[in-house]
């Protein structure tokens, strides 16, 4: 056991896992976090708590994760390289461990020019791969990035932060052939699980997964396929035009446009995608990204036949 998180245990148990996402509020309103947590409780094995998502200031991932934990969720803290240097990252990782948080997703982070502080200075002291490596060294090597042992004084015991380490993978970014190489590097750096970008383009994803399985990467890491329920064809069109690294087939936009009830159709498409993922070799679960539509997650999980969620087997 690496960190002993619920997510890790369920994956070790061989369960097909379902993770979801909770975006912290753009204000200091704790009730929003509690409300979202209540919706997701019982419907996701773990929940990503985003970190200044799209470079917009929000309640910090670790603070929101602690509240989610107290509300009965299993949080996955997200950490981007955009806003922190190695000192701040390691301090936050120690802090997260102290608070009882056990999963960490390492990300590059959206560029600050997308967000509400485009005049800010980005950090990128480390990149996401170096962040995974640092976290793994903290956990398994029991050392800080500088090489110093993680102990308070020379005579104190070593008490290292233990995180189950996740990374993102975007099979739809370019250059396409490099995407699997990048994933291999993330695994080499120490990734335990992977959550992919939202999949709408199934043929392209299948090609990517073929390359992944050809290299045997699926045996070294747990891959969770990213899926997204969308409310309207407009959302799809917007992402197609404005979000870099997304592949959205026109057929799908047409299907959503032709639907009498777009929201219901969005859920149906998402459920169909989950079914496809359950059949696909090398996929260990799904990551349901219902951005600012958390209330739909229970429906998606139930319709996909993923409810109730499994329990951790007694040791």
């Amino acid at each position, binding site marked *: 056991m690496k960190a002993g998180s619920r997510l890790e245990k369920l994956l070790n148990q061989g369960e097909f896992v379902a993770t979801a996402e909770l975006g912290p509020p753009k204000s200091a309103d704790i009730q929003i976090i509690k409300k979202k947590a209540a919706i997701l409780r019982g419907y996701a094995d773990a929940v990503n708590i985003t970190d200044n998502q799209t470079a917009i200031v929000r309640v910090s991932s670790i603070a929101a994760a602690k509240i989610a934990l107290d509300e009965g969720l299993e949080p996955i803290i997200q950490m981007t390289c955009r806003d922190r240097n190695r000192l701040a990252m390691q301090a936050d990782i120690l802090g997260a461990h102290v608070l009882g948080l056990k999963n960490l997703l390492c990300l590059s982070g959206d560029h600050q020019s997308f967000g509400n502080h485009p005049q800010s200075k980005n950090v990128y002291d480390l990149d996401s791969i170096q962040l995974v490596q640092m976290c793994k060294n903290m956990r398994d090597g029991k050392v800080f990035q500088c090489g110093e042992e993680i102990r308070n004084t020379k005579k104190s015991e070593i008490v290292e932060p233990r995180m189950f380490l996740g990374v993102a993978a975007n099979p739809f*970014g370019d250059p396409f052939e*490099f995407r699997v190489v990048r994933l291999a590097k993330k695994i080499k750096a120490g990734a335990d699980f992977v959550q992919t970008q939202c999949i709408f383009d199934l043929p392209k994803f299948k090609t990517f997964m073929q390359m992944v399985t050809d290299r045997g990467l699926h045996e070294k890491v747990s891959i969770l396929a990213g899926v997204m329920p969308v409310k309207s064809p407009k959302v799809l069109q917007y992402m197609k035009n404005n979000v*870099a690294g997304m592949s959205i087939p026109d057929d799908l936009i047409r299907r959503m446009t032709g639907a009498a009830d777009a929201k219901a159709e969005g859920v149906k498409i998402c459920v169909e995608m989950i079914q496809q993922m359950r059949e696909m070799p090398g996929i260990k679960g799904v990551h349901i990204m219902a951005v600012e539509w958390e209330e739909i997650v229970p429906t998606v999980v139930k319709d996909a036949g993923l409810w109730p969620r499994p329990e951790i087997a007694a040791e």
Partner: protein
Amino acid sequence: MIVAEQKDITEIIKMIEGYQKILVIGCDTCVTVCLAGGVKEVAILASSLRLAYQVQGKEVQVHETSIERQCEKEFVDSLKSAVKGHDLLISTGCGIGVQTIAEQFPDLPVIPALNTSFLGLPEKQGVWVERCQACGQCILDKTGGICPISRCSKSLLNGPCGGSQNGKCEINKDIDCGWHLIYERLKALNRLECLEEIMPVKNWSTSRDGGPRKVIREDMCL
């Protein structure tokens, strides 16, 4: 070369308010090539200032001159006689030029007429692009001669982020993805295996983060 751009004229006028005898000093090196602060630009700036004072009915004298390189004390010292009698110096050099003048003429105020932009090259007529961030630890041998520190918007060291699409950066479709360029170049050189290696955490202490930097060549010191 150092690439710079002239500040807005209204900003310059605000900075020089209250002075009577002004000398505008150009630089014949980088800022001449990037059409920001050479003899020609000095002449235009000085004329604009004279015109502005004329309109305001103020009697301010604006003179102009230029030197080979504002970033070398020997050249700046050659200004001694030209500077005499002025109460303000305007430099159309880069930030280094402004500071060299300030150091050599400690009794006179000097103001910058340019914003120093970056280290780069002219790509085509009227377009200059960034190529180096002077991080103090060159890794161009590993990246096909293309710098990820200056050409990736996030200065990533281990390949393109998920926002790279059709060879362009996520922040702007007019910006090439630096890592896509590196990938294509290494592919052409048959050296893609370079990208399989994890590039370790960078030592930024040789970059800006280590404080003001200094190069000392003991063998060249007198």
